[in-house]
């Protein structure tokens, strides 16, 4: 039987890893909104974030914050390369979205193979950004890295909110997601927006990868699970909604953590996929759009009475 401490511990751990899923989910949404493409290579950006940081740290011996600060633009550049070499040529030749999405899946496999050849296949990890810990509150043990994840996650969400709401480029990206033709007719270079979207979502993936690696490990193949969980987070949130993806990620993380503590670690995937299936069956447009519709329906029927 679970006690309150175990439940609280699961909530804290789930929230931390859920925020990572949320960041990956936002990465999916940023590209999807700018182009309609579901980028299945999103997970490799998470992997590259951790791998690049580890490589810079061990080979150059620079501080972890500096290594992270270099790794993020490197991964963003990798995102631009994927857009430039894989997506844009197909896009310009009028390939179907389905074909482009399959190409991103192939890209994920290709990047994983390149990573094995260049950086090796051995798992590796990073030290926690703040040594010591965990912080003990009653029976709870909270790793300092969780605070880094929550803090950086909140900061990133705030910065994204400012970017999409207050900057010309951010507004133009949102405009592209709502009506690409109208945006182009006003002078917005839709193709360049797609490149910016890839860079931004790759950078988000990299941050997620750097933040989460100290709590587990990174290797050439960690991109797939993070990609899948981020994808599920985005679907739960209503694909395309950045806020929904973040909330979906946190819900997914908490649900997984509770499933692990009650049923065992083997049920981690079962929990994630079950949650996805239930949400899709009950609210095909995502949990939050579904709940909003439900509430609006209730308020209409209350008004009618």
């Amino acid at each position, binding site marked *: 039987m679970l006690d309150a401490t175990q439940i609280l511990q699961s909530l804290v751990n789930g929230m931390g890893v859920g925020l990572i899923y949320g960041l990956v989910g936002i990465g999916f949404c940023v590209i999807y909104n700018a182009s309609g493409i579901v980028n299945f290579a999103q997970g490799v950006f998470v992997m590259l974030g951790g791998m690049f940081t580890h490589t810079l740290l061990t080979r150059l011996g620079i501080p972890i914050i500096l290594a992270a600060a270099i790794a993020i633009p490197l991964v963003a550049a990798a995102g631009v390369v994927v857009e430039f070499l894989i997506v844009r040529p197909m896009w310009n030749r009028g390939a179907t979205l389905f074909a482009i999405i399959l190409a991103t899946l192939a890209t994920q496999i290709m990047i994983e193979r390149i990573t094995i050849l260049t950086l090796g296949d051995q798992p590796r990890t990073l030290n926690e950004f703040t040594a010591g810990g965990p912080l003990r509150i009653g029976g709870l043990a909270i790793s300092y890295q969780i605070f880094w994840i929550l803090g950086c996650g909140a900061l990133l969400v705030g910065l994204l909110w400012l970017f999409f709401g207050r900057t*010309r480029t951010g*507004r*133009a990206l*949102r*405009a592209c997601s*709502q*009506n690409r*033709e*109208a*945006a*182009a*007719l*006003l*002078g*917005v*270079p*839709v193709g360049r927006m797609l490149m910016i979207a890839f860079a931004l979502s790759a950078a988000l993936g990299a941050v997620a990868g750097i933040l989460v690696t100290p709590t587990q490990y990174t290797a050439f193949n960690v991109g797939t699970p993070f990609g899948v969980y981020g994808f599920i987070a985005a679907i739960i949130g209503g694909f395309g909604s950045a806020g929904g993806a973040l909330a979906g990620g946190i819900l997914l993380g908490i649900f997984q953590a509770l499933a692990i503590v009650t049923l065992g670690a083997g049920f981690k995937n079962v929990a994630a996929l079950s949650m996805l299936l239930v949400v899709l069956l009950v609210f095909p447009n995502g949990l939050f759009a579904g709940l909003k519709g439900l509430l609006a329906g209730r308020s209409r029927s209350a008004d009618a009475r």
Partner: protein
Amino acid sequence: MSAGSSSVGATVPQTATTSAHLFEARDVSAHYGRVHALKPTSLHVGRGELVTVLGPNGAGKTTLMRALTRLMPREGSLFFEGRDVSALKTHELARLGIIMVQEGRGLFGQMTVRENLSVGGFTRPHEDEKLETVFTLFPRLKERVDQISSSLSGGEQQMLAIGRALMADPKVLMLDEPSLGLAPKVATEILETLGELNRRGLGILLVEQKAPLALKLARRVYILTLGRVAAELPADQIGSHHDLARYYLN
């Protein structure tokens, strides 16, 4: 018959690679798959001129506008301020000042009035000054500046679509059926505003089904039927619906 072959008024000498008009399309045509929806069509808009394109449903008016702004593949040549701009993409044409308000308005429905206007000024500096100009023209937009655009009335949405286009500093403004779906009074108000903009010197290419309103404003008319220009004539030569029907049927 292409418009180029039935020009009204003085013909301006021009070479094959330049144009004396503000905006000129030469033998522009477009296909939907195997369907030749727009046959080679030529038209032009002079500086400060308001030109209207009339035609029945399915005549190819929207296809013409989409082809001119390169929202769809097209053949033929396009000139702007004497320069060949045939190869430019949609957003590059917009940066030059060729701006189109789409049929159905094409608003960014999840964004506020202010955000829609801001995207309109994406390529231009001095956003605040332009906002004031738009708000002077359409005071109702100022009252609803923080409202989500999809919640505006049809007339307000059209005002926003035109205001957003003005933020992009157009030199030639193309409008595809701006009165579509609007109450007659609102449609008149919108078209009168277009007349005012034209009097201030803005070149306008107006596609419209409400012929009487458009004819009051326009100097010249292109009549489009079955994907080709059936006639080009001064607006005051069309006196009645019978005149128009004659062209539509011919």
